[in-house]
């Protein structure tokens, strides 16, 4: 199902470099800067009106943001968009203007993974408190967090 | 068993006679008055102990569980334990609370409750003060609690209490109007405000048979007056934590609890006096009849509390002003008409006429309601 979508996308955006990744759940990898165009096209033209999940993954060489899109009318089969961002300055355009449901999910990915979303209405931490330093889900972050005085005595 | 009937009255005469032997007359009267006051206050404390226990057992039974049954035999001493704990609790006055108002409010809530007890006719001749403006006195005193609860809401400088206080003002004032109007129907039939004469007026037929609609309106607005069951917005636990008594702890909270439960019992007692014929009853002594009827109505109060959800504040107002007040006015008008038409023709035509009148009012309400619903549905379809 996502094969034909990929074909139509390539016709629509000849100059962008789209890639089709095989695997249990086939995905389409998109560059960060033309993600917004592709997403708007998918939403308006191809009827992908439901954004199910926004996930951030911390690979050794890059950050990756994965979007799972579904169309409620046509039916099953997620369309998966994978966008990679650089390790030092992870920045991905925000899709809140297309799907308002992505608001909290993007804030959570920013809060736990540290990937900024350009154009997000109020990009703040959602699960941890404001003054917290560090993004816990990165591989270099220890699971116990940084020890503070209250923490050491008790454990 | 005539002896049992007015046991307490004979007792008071005997004490008065005993005192009059070696005290001047005025001193004996003074002591008698103090004695009745003390007896009323003791009666109030015993009632609250019994009601609190009864309420928790009955609501427990509604929910398929036992109420407190481990404290005394069947949990009787539950409120004694609560009282001991509450009196020995630390008394907190929040730092930024308005100290004077905060501490004054619980006292001001309890005082009117005890004042109303003076006028209730517990049995034949067993009334502390037989005022001839009995019902007016009750209405006047019960509106004092509004100010007291507003003081509590404002004094504790807490947003939730403030909301609770505002709600109490809106609710109690707008529910006094239908309460008084529906009670007027009864007073019109007896011709006097004094509760004792109202009860005597019902010796042949209780007023509930004459004015079932009047009773319904009175009952609904009385529940709202006491912040109970579907109208307990001022201390809505699920919305504004504990409403006006959020900041109160220990003894002060015990006062609020005392006032709340005794107010509920008094409202049930007044409803029994006005509409079910207070202590009128065939064989049992009068005071037993009074308590039977009062606790029957109190059971309905508990029943509503265990079942019904709460109204929203604007629906509450709408119910009072758009539904209860007009209905009470119509009921007053029709009852006045019926009373004058069957002036001297004895009992049977009066009962017949009032039942027919009530039937007509109810039919009118149903027709208007159905018409309004159809009209609303058309508007919705059109929109």
């Amino acid at each position, binding site marked *: 199902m996502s094969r034909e979508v990929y074909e139509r996308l390539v016709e629509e955006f000849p100059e962008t470099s789209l890639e089709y990744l095989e695997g249990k759940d086939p995905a389409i990898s998109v560059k960060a800067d033309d993600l917004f165009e592709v997403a708007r096209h998918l939403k308006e033209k191809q009827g992908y009106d439901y954004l199910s999940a926004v996930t951030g993954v911390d690979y050794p060489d890059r950050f990756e943001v994965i979007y799972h899109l579904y169309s409620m009318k046509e039916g099953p089969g997620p369309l998966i968009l994978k966008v990679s961002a650089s390790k030092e300055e992870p920045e991905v355009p925000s899709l809140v203007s297309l799907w308002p449901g992505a608001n909290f999910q993007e804030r959570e990915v920013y809060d736990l993974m540290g990937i900024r979303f350009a154009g997000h209405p109020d990009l703040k931490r959602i699960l941890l408190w404001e003054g917290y330093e560090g993004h816990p889900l990165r591989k270099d972050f220890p*699971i*116990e*967090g940084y020890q503070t005085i209250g923490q050491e005595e008790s454990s | 068993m005539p002896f049992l009937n007015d046991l307490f009255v004979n007792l008071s005469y005997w004490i008065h006679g005993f005192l009059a032997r070696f005290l001047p007359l005025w001193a004996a009267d003074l002591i008698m008055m103090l004695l009745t006051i003390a007896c009323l206050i003791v009666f109030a404390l015993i009632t609250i102990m019994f009601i609190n226990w009864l309420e928790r057992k009955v609501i427990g039974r509604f929910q398929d569980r036992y*109420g407190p049954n481990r404290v005394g035999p069947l*949990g009787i001493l539950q409120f004694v334990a609560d009282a001991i704990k509450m009196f020995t609790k*630390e008394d907190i006055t929040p730092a930024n609370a308005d100290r004077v108002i905060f501490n004054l409010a619980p006292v001001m809530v309890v005082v009117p409750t005890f004042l109303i007890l003076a006028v209730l006719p517990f049995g034949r001749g067993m009334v502390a003060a037989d005022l001839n403006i009995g019902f007016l006195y009750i209405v006047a005193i019960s509106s004092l609690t509004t100010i007291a609860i507003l003081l509590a809401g404002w004094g504790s400088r807490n947003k939730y209490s403030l909301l609770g206080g505002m709600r109490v003002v809106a609710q109690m004032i707008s529910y006094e109007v239908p309460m008084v109007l529906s009670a007027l129907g009864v007073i019109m039939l007896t011709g006097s405000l004094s509760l004792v004469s109202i009860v005597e007026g019902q010796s042949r037929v209780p007023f509930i048979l004459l004015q079932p609609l009047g009773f319904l309106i009175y009952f609904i607005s009385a529940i709202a007056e006491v912040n109970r069951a579907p109208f307990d917005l001022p201390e809505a636990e699920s919305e504004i934590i504990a409403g006006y008594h959020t900041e109160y*702890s220990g003894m002060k909270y015990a006062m609020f609890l005392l006032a709340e439960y005794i107010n509920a019992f008094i409202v049930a007692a007044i409803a029994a006096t006005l509409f079910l014929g207070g202590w009128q009853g065939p064989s049992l002594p009068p005071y037993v009849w009074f308590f039977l009827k009062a606790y029957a109505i109190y059971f309905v109060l508990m029943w509503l509390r265990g079942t019904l959800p709460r109204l929203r504040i604007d629906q509450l107002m709408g119910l009072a002003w758009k539904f209860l007040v007009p209905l009470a006015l119509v009921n007053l008008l029709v009852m006045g008409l019926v009373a004058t038409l069957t002036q001297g023709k004895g009992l049977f035509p009066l009962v017949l006429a009032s039942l027919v009148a009530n039937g007509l009012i109810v039919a009118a309400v149903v027709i208007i309601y159905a018409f309004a619903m159809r009209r609303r549905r058309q508007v919705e379809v059109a929109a």
Partner: protein
Amino acid sequence: MTEEEHIAEQIRRNIIITTIDKIYNWGRRSSVWPMGFGLACCAFEMICAAASRFDFARFGMEMMRPTPRQADLLIVSGTVTKKMAPQVVRLYDQMPEPKYVLAMGACAISGGPFKDTYNVVNGIDTYLPVDVYVPGCPPRPEALLEGFIKLHQMIEGQTILTSPWYRKEVEREMPVPILGPRGLVLPGEGHE
């Protein structure tokens, strides 16, 4: 005051004290009002303990008061995260004296399954004096009831003479931790 008189006087005084103690503790034991405050899964087992099958209203604890002012037992039922710890300690401070804390469930006792992670406090006894520990994840409602019975026995063992809350100089106010950049910091040794 010879020896015998002193002893006799002590005995007489004790008799008075013990009777007062007995009534005082009986009153407090049989009307412990828990605070309607739940954190996580253990809170749901607490609601089940209040529900019809294991009804703890039988012990006189029916009035689950939502405000800390009218509660005397703080049941810490669930995981105390670092973001929630200041609120829990402030609630404890707002409760009027003779107050008790019952740590319900592995998370409240020692952080449980989420022990040693960046956002969970390793047990509420880092910040609050805990009276009874009820282990389990979540403990069965009956285990919670057994915890209550243990708490009642403990209350019965207390006397007015040695109770800390009537002393003037005993400060039972727990310091409220502050959310620092790395985790919770007690106001005392805030090293930022």
